[in-house]
């Protein structure tokens, strides 16, 4: 009786928990974008807009909190939302790259926000039909907020696009820069496939036409030109698998330093 020869092929990495991965994607999009928006606090062009942007940032932070809390519970290793937000490294974050790009000027901030807000409404609306009751409930609560967000950023798109020469030029330049980050929003991988098969999440790719027709309608009314599409990206994704731009590291350094310097601090 001989024992089988030890395999020289390394064991495949353990299969990631699909729901945990997906909840991090949802939560991290909102955490990172909310943080970017919060950078406007005290710097927005006018007091009322300062409050409006901080308000949207707080909505996104609130959504991130419940999504990452649920992610921690699903993972089952005792990590709560704070542990996930403050004690993961950049490669462990699952947000889309669109969310982490630097704030830029006001036109860039609004254009990015608008692209995301429309995506958010389309996605959350579909997630309210999730077979996971908890996720469906979170989506329903967040959808109300997202509907307001898109009203705010959509109105600004019209004002900036159809405003002065300078505002038009700036917001068009922002769109031209941002457009290549939008395919990532709808790219699917095996995580999505597994969850979509059980009706936990919608088929992201199927949501793209609705998103595209909504954003193009606003571009038209705002006299903005839809940028040319980039070739379809490969299935392997950037931010969703932890590949980020250099900007995320800088953002995290600022966002995480207090929690890391004073672990367990409460106030």
């Amino acid at each position, binding site marked *: 009786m001989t024992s089988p020869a030890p395999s020289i092929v390394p064991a495949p990495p353990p299969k990631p928990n699909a729901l945990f991965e997906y909840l991090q994607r949802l939560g991290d999009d909102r955490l990172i974008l909310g943080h970017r928006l919060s950078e406007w606090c005290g710097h927005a062009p*006018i*007091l*009322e807009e300062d*409050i*409006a942007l901080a308000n949207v940032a707080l909505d996104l932070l609130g959504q991130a909190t419940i999504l990452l809390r649920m992610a921690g519970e699903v993972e089952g290793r005792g990590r709560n939302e704070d542990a996930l937000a403050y004690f993961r490294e950049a490669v462990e974050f699952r947000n889309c790259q669109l969310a982490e790009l630097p704030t830029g000027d006001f036109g860039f901030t609004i254009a990015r926000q608008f692209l995301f807000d429309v995506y958010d409404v389309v996605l959350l609306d579909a997630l309210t039909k999730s077979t996971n009751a908890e996720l469906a409930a979170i989506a329903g609560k967040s959808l109300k907020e997202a509907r*307001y967000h898109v*009203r*705010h950023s959509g*109105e600004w798109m019209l*004002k900036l696009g159809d405003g002065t020469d300078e505002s038009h030029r700036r917001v068009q330049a922002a769109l031209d820069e941002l457009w290549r980050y939008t395919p990532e929003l709808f790219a699917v991988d095996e995580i999505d496939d597994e969850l979509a098969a059980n009706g936990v999440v919608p088929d992201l790719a199927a949501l793209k036409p609705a998103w595209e027709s909504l954003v193009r309608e606003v571009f038209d009314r705002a006299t903005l030109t839809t940028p040319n599409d980039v070739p379809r990206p490969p299935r392997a994704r950037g931010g969703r698998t932890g590949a980020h731009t250099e900007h995320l590291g800088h953002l995290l350094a600022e966002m995480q330093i207090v929690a890391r310097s004073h672990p367990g601090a409460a106030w």
Partner: protein
Amino acid sequence: MASTVINQVVGRQADSLTGESQWPLWEVFTQSEQGAPHEHAGSLHAVDAEQALQNARDVYARRGGVISLWVIPSGAITASSPSESGPFFDPGADKAYRHPQFYKVPRGVRGV
């Protein structure tokens, strides 16, 4: 050349001092419950009615307690003048019959 620059800077400051560079002012009224009156909550700046409504929502309704908002261009309000306050408001405190103080309010009636 230098004086042109100075004029521009001074001109810009003068604009901001006189409020010429500001967006129009709006008055905000909030209603706290069905049937309650809309009450003046404050004012804000906005370029149009939709933006005024959104700003009012964020500035005056974000912490809840509001079910309806009105926004009105401040310029649309006709106000009494302080110099007329005497003729307008001297109430005739000596005319007790103007005040409905001779009725008993039934128990259970609220909001009076």
